[in-house]
């Protein structure tokens, strides 16, 4: 069975790589199969890991517990299970997403969207500010606290000449890049020069990102070639 799986994977890998020659039915078959299986798999996982354990099971247990309460057989377990009834509210709000299917009730979709955006913004804003603005600003300035001998720091904690150069370069990069995105002032004179330096920093950043992307894509190819050579060709011995 494992060998069969390896052969299917090898066939689909070769189907996908056949696109490098030109578009062909094998490539399209593998592409459509991939999209279909991915969507189907995600739906099944969503039902088994989301809908059933988080909604269906607690609710059905709560309904059973409610019936037990009604007939007067109360136990600590049934009391605990009754808490599942609270899930009716989020489930009902979630179901409002399907109001989209009825043109006259489409407006109801605003309720879950408003709750999602409100929750998202409320949770995200303070944490994102802290992590991406305050901590990053501190990270940019903090190295200057370790530059001796002007600051009182132990010799072993002092920055080396190279680190000091790096810290200064980073501050220049941050200021110039932010200047490039600062449109409230016309980019003329010194502001224009600062923003041009900012562009240079941006280009270096994009270049690094592009180089890393090429590296990442090659890693995927190396993994596939390794699979074809070691696992697929290696499986020939089991068959022939």
């Amino acid at each position, binding site marked *: 069975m494992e060998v069969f799986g390896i052969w299917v994977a090898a066939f689909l890998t070769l189907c996908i790589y056949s696109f490098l020659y030109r578009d062909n039915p094998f490539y399209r078959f593998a592409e459509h199969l991939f999209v279909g299986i991915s969507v189907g798999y995600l739906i099944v996982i969503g039902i088994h890991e989301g809908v059933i354990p988080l909604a269906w099971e607690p609710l059905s247990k709560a309904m059973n517990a409610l019936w037990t309460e009604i007939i007067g057989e109360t136990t600590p377990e049934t009391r605990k299970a009754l808490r599942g009834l609270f899930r009716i509210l989020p489930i009902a709000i979630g179901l409002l997403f399907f109001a989209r299917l009825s043109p006259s009730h489409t407006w109801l979709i605003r309720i879950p969207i408003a709750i999602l955006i409100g929750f998202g913004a409320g949770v995200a804003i303070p944490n994102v500010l802290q992590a991406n603005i305050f*901590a990053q600003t501190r990270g940019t300035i903090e190295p200057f606290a370790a530059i001796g001998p002007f600051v009182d720091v132990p010799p072993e904690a002092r920055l080396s000449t190279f680190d000091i150069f790096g810290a200064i370069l980073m501050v220049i990069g941050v200021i110039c890049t932010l200047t490039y995105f600062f449109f409230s002032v016309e980019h003329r004179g010194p502001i224009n020069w600062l923003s041009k330096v900012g562009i240079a920093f941006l280009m270096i950043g994009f270049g690094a990102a592009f180089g890393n*992307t090429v590296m990442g894509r090659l890693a995927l190819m190396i993994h596939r070639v390794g699979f074809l050579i070691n696992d697929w060709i290696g499986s020939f011995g089991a068959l022939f």
Partner: protein
Amino acid sequence: MLEKFMNMDRRIIFILVALVVIIPTLIPIRLPITVSEPTQKLYDFIEELPSGSTIMMAFDYGPSSLAEPEPMAKAVMQHCFSKGVKVIGMTLYPNTPTLADKLMRKIAAENNAVYGEDYVFLGYRPGALQVILGMGTDISSVFETDYQKTPITEISMMENITNYDQIDLLLDLASGSSTETWIIYANTRYGLKIAAGVTAVIIAQMYPYLQSGQLIGLMPGYLGAAQYEKLLNAHGDGTVGLNTASFAHLLIIVLVILGNVAFFIHRRREA
């Protein structure tokens, strides 16, 4: 000659790339590897953890991007098991549980680690944000059972673990933006120490967090995996992948230089 070069069929480049990937795979060549500071920091952090400590590994990558994070996961798990550091696995990606469970069991078997005592795999729960925030209060409120549907209260390793306070480090093995989510919510809100092992595509986004101390260590792609393997004196998939990748990178650099030289000569002639 120049015209021919400028109008070269792109499929020739594909064949050249295929050759520089296939040949080093068939004839392995070991190139020297230098360990970078971010990988060394992660290794040192785990090395200094006392036996019985716990790290959480988030397998936040999919089947389409496992080439780079998987060797990192193998190397770090091997290190943890050899030191008696317990590992809790989980994922924020719906299509990863099977991969991660299989990988953890394989590495554990190779290192004689016992499920439930040395490691546990919690699986996947939907809603990344709610999962991260929920585990900060109570892990069992998010994962009532592990991946095999065993109640978390019945797993001996989890007896004294309630939330992030009992976890010494979170290692996010990522191919997307999950590391930023962990930093924003788990590190900022709960003070959980975070390290990352990321695919090469997102390395550039991670360095600001490393510089600010929000990440205590970072493994960048195949390079990070190979560096970690070197620190462990092991020869794994990361080392093999990096050796092969080095030849492909060399070819791409040569092609970029040739392409630029040809472009500028062509432009000068046209002018």
